[in-house]
């Protein structure tokens, strides 16, 4: 096999805690992603997903309440928006951007692209970027492929071409990857060191896996576990001087006691010194300038031997 193809997406070791510096001597980066998709599963947003009470709440009161909480805590977020939702919520999105939040792409209808051929995926990617640019007055610089509650796995689905297509289309970053808990370089070709910056994601900090997950049923409501995950991770990452992120959905975190959990978590987070709260784009620009792939992507030479009877 070509070195690491099908095994790894980056170098062998992350940056150590001591190597990480944030702007202005800050100690911990706090990234917030708001997912505006209403997709239930791999097929992406369907008409039926838009006509439920949950969808109405997500687009109105849930979103209002979430924006109020963020404003009250002076925190900015990156909104991951499928093209379909951008059209539906165009006026709201412009207002959200005007408040200092970032608008990033999240697929055409947040569909699973893993089975698409390269040409079809490229066309959808282009159209999505165009729609977001029309509405927001500028093209998106980031792309997300976040998971849905009905997915088989909790990491988000991409195709073998997605990362390469994002590089070709000029995206500055991919919004969710699982190989690190800080920004890192996702390599699409090891020989040429072709890579795209990827921001960390982990499903234990994503509200959708704790709020009536994966559907209605007894004992499936566990926002208290989410709150503890957030608190333990934030405190540990702050101690290490790394990165803390959370993924929020208005339809989940916007409701009553769950919103209070967010409120309490953010109060706790903000009681710590040295926080840097950039949008994903600002974080990516900083990382690109401070830890460029040319100097900080440390690819080891291959020592892999193909063997008959073994995976290649």
């Amino acid at each position, binding site marked *: 096999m070509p070195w690491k193809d099908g095994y790894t997406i980056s170098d062998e070791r992350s940056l150590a805690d001591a190597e990480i510096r944030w702007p202005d001597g800050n100690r911990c980066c706090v990234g917030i992603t708001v997912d505006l998709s209403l997709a239930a599963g791999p097929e992406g947003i369907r008409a039926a997903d838009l006509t439920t009470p949950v969808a109405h709440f997500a687009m109105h009161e849930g979103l209002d309440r979430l924006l109020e909480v963020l404003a009250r805590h002076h925190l900015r977020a990156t909104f991951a928006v499928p093209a379909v939702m951008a059209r539906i919520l165009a006026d709201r999105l412009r207002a959200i951007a005007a408040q200092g939040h970032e608008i990033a792409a999240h697929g055409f209808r947040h569909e699973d692209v893993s089975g698409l051929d390269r040409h079809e995926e490229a066309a959808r990617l282009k159209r999505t970027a165009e729609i977001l640019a029309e509405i927001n007055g500028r093209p998106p610089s980031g792309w997300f492929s976040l998971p849905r509650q009905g997915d088989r796995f909790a990491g988000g689905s991409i195709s073998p071409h997605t990362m390469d297509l994002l590089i070709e289309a000029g995206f500055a970053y991919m919004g969710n990857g*699982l190989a690190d808990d800080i920004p890192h370089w996702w390599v699409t070709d090891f020989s040429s060191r072709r890579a795209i910056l990827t921001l960390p994601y982990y499903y234990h900090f994503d509200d959708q896996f704790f709020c009536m997950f994966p559907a209605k049923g007894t*004992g499936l409501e566990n926002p208290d576990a989410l709150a503890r995950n957030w608190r333990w991770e934030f405190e540990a990452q702050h101690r290490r001087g790394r990165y803390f992120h959370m993924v929020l959905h208005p339809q989940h975190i916007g409701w009553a006691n769950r919103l209070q959990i967010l409120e309490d978590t953010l109060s706790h987070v903000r009681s710590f010194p040295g926080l840097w709260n950039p949008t994903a784009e600002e974080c990516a620009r900083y990382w690109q300038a401070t830890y460029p792939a040319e100097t900080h992507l440390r690819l080891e030479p291959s020592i892999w031997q193909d063997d008959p009877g*073994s995976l290649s």
Partner: protein
Amino acid sequence: MPDDLDRDLAELTAVARRQEARHEPIPDLTWPGDARIAVNFTADFDAMLLRRLMNEPPMQLAKGEFGGRVGIWRLVELFDSHGVKATIFTPGRICELYPQAVLAAARSGHEIADHMWEHRVPKEPELERDHLQRSTSALERLTGRRPAGTRSHHTPSLLRELGYIYRSNGSADHRPHYLRDADGGNCLVNLPFHYAIDDAMFFSFAWLGTDTAAQRMADPERVLDLWWNAFRQQHGQGRGYLNICLHPFVSGRALRIAMLDRLIARMKEMPGVWFTTCEAVARHCLSVHPPRGGWA
């Protein structure tokens, strides 16, 4: 009809008896000095290899990759900070994917043991032999020490032939015990672990092929409580044993390193805790409590 019932009765009873005969408990087990409990922290370090073997999609591989890039280093640092020696079960292939991490763990004095060449045991006998030999020599070449144990279901006769003295599978008994072939030979020490003390069962989405509706994500406080209670129960009964199964891609996350740090600190406040490697426990069993049925 009654004949069929009698035949079933005889057959099932014989199966149960044969299985029982394979197990030799160590009822009078004692630990060195005044230790009341032996604690084995074990880390199954296969990074993305099992995900790759199961043909899981790219984000799943990246999730496993966290174990090699970040998790294993943090676990080693955590164990070192507490003076705890752990056992890293790793597929031989990991010596090619993350050689520096495996070497660093070995240099810190942790045991490096086998976890199958590429996280599977081939059905074909010749290929199985080939895989186990490859894995054994890859680990020996990198660390300078031949592995003494495995977490796998490799054929016992092959394990014994290649010099293995223990395996770590299943939960047939709370304490280390001896396990033999169906025909009574190829004895190995077995160091049991239970899925209830396995990080992946609480934190790893879609573990062991489970479907989406079967997932309940836990948090560190809940698992800390559960595992602390398991430790106290084994410590309280004396001659206790606890094998804590971790995965670097799961437990290497910052929130769980913090959880384990608290767990180890609490354990250290209790008297008579022997934190050691699996190999040390296996050698202790063999020298102090050799198998009554012989080491054949």
